[in-house]
């Protein structure tokens, strides 16, 4: 494995919220085209960890690199100083994020949501952005909803538009923060299907989710977090057949 194959390199990531020690040294490498599922009980730090990856949260220690460049900080004489807002923003353009609550822009149609950042952040010409957005909406199965406002879409449709919106930036890495846990059970499948297709097409993905069906179908690796640490990692089969850690067994017995 050459160094250029590593998309994400997180080393000893530390994070506190006040006196609460949320991340106690998380290290994780993710290779190109790999899909990693992060599971773990609530409060284990999984969401905080992926929010650190695109610097929605500051780090208290450790470092995160995406495609070899340090995220959110600048190195000066061996010390890390927070980077400028502009250059953090530029780094975020290569990291797509899908949120639990979709966070679509309610005042813009599905198509306008998708072209917003390419046009106004990357400076892509409007006609080109529209053509690409139409292709992306077709890919998530929502071509005919291009002129519909988010308020008129179901939760599953909104989340698929949100995925298209993130993909429109042509990111090197996609982060999914519990993408299906705010959805009605009957529409979870359509979102997972889009995500599985994306994984099979070779997108590099980190997915915080308890959907073990998705993990079995699409993940290359599963990571179990508990109390701010990664306590076990392996293939999905490993987790289904022979989890080692006691906490992992307990947790899986609850969600499976």
């Amino acid at each position: 494995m050459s160094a250029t194959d590593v998309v994400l390199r997180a080393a000893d990531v530390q994070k506190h919220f006040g006196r609460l020690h949320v991340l106690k040294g998380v290290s994780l490498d993710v290779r190109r085209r790999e899909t990693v599922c992060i599971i773990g009980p609530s409060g284990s730090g999984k969401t905080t960890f992926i929010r650190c990856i695109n610097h929605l949260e500051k780090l208290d220690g450790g470092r995160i690199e995406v495609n070899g460049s340090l995220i959110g900080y600048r190195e000066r004489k061996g010390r890390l100083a927070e980077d400028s807002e502009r250059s953090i923003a530029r780094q975020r353009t290569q990291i797509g994020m899908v949120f639990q609550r979709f966070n679509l822009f309610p005042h813009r149609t599905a198509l306008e949501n998708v072209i917003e950042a390419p046009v106004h952040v990357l400076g892509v010409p409007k006609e080109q952005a529209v053509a690409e957005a139409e292709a992306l909406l077709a890919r998530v199965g929502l071509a005919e909803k291009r002129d519909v406002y988010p308020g008129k879409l179901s939760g599953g449709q909104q989340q698929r538009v949100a995925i298209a919106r993130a993909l429109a930036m042509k990111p090197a890495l996609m982060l999914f923060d519990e993408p299906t846990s705010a959805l009605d059970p009957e529409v979870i499948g359509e979102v997972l299907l889009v995500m599985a297709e994306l994984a099979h097409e070779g997108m590099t993905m980190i997915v915080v989710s308890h959907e073990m069906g998705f993990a079995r179908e699409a993940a290359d690796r599963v990571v179990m977090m508990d109390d701010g640490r990664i306590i076990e990692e392996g293939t999905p089969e490993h987790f289904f057949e022979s989890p080692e850690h006691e906490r992992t067994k307990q947790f899986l017995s609850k969600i499976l």
Partner: protein
Amino acid sequence: MTLVAAVDWHILWQRIFHPDHVFFDALWKTIYISVAAQFFGVLLGLMAALMRMSKFWPARLLSGLYVLLFRGTPVIVQIFFVYFGANLLFGVDLFPRTVGWLGGLNGAVFAGIVALAVNEGAYMREIIRAGIDAIDKGQLEAARSLGMTQRLAMRRVVLPQAARVIVPPLGNEFNNMMKTTSLLFFIGVSEIFGNADVNYANNFKPVEEFASVALWYLVLTTVWSVIQAQIERKLSVSERGEELSFRERLAQAWSPVQAWGRGAL
């Protein structure tokens, strides 16, 4: 009924249905002072609201002091201070009798617009701040995760949504503004209240003069409330993404009643 007999119906009729050109000048003055003061008030309020969110603490402090000072003192005091006080304080006549470069704008009118705008800005800051706070934090996070800077996210994502929250209270502010312009009479601006007072001084008919000017304020605020309702309807339509006809809205309002009727039967 001696009281009713004392009313000079002819004057009342004249003031309401056959106002003279002096009145129309005054009416125009009331309208353009209100619009200008509200416009600059919104700009000042927006600037102060953005300063309040700044990372630079003196900007936040300045914004806080501004609201403290201008919400905490009477607007009439502010009007007098701007018109009379600023002149003495700075040693220059900020508001000469006519400001030539503004097309012969009366100095008192100019001072009045400045005072009302600065006062209004303090209230608008609070309204705009509440509008921005009402927008879900997830919106800003989504914008940032797409590579937007704070400034771009504000302009493209947060403020357009906050505008919808701000419009109803902004409409009320403008309603207030039209009535507050009457205070400019005290620095010699002949808007419609000033006009009524001049007429009263000539004919000693307070009931007729002030009743008719009250009616004209009522006309202004009523016309505005119709415009405001139209703006609000338009905004809520574009958020829903479709327009409902009057019949459809009536049907919507009626359906719970129908459902209740079916349940009861």
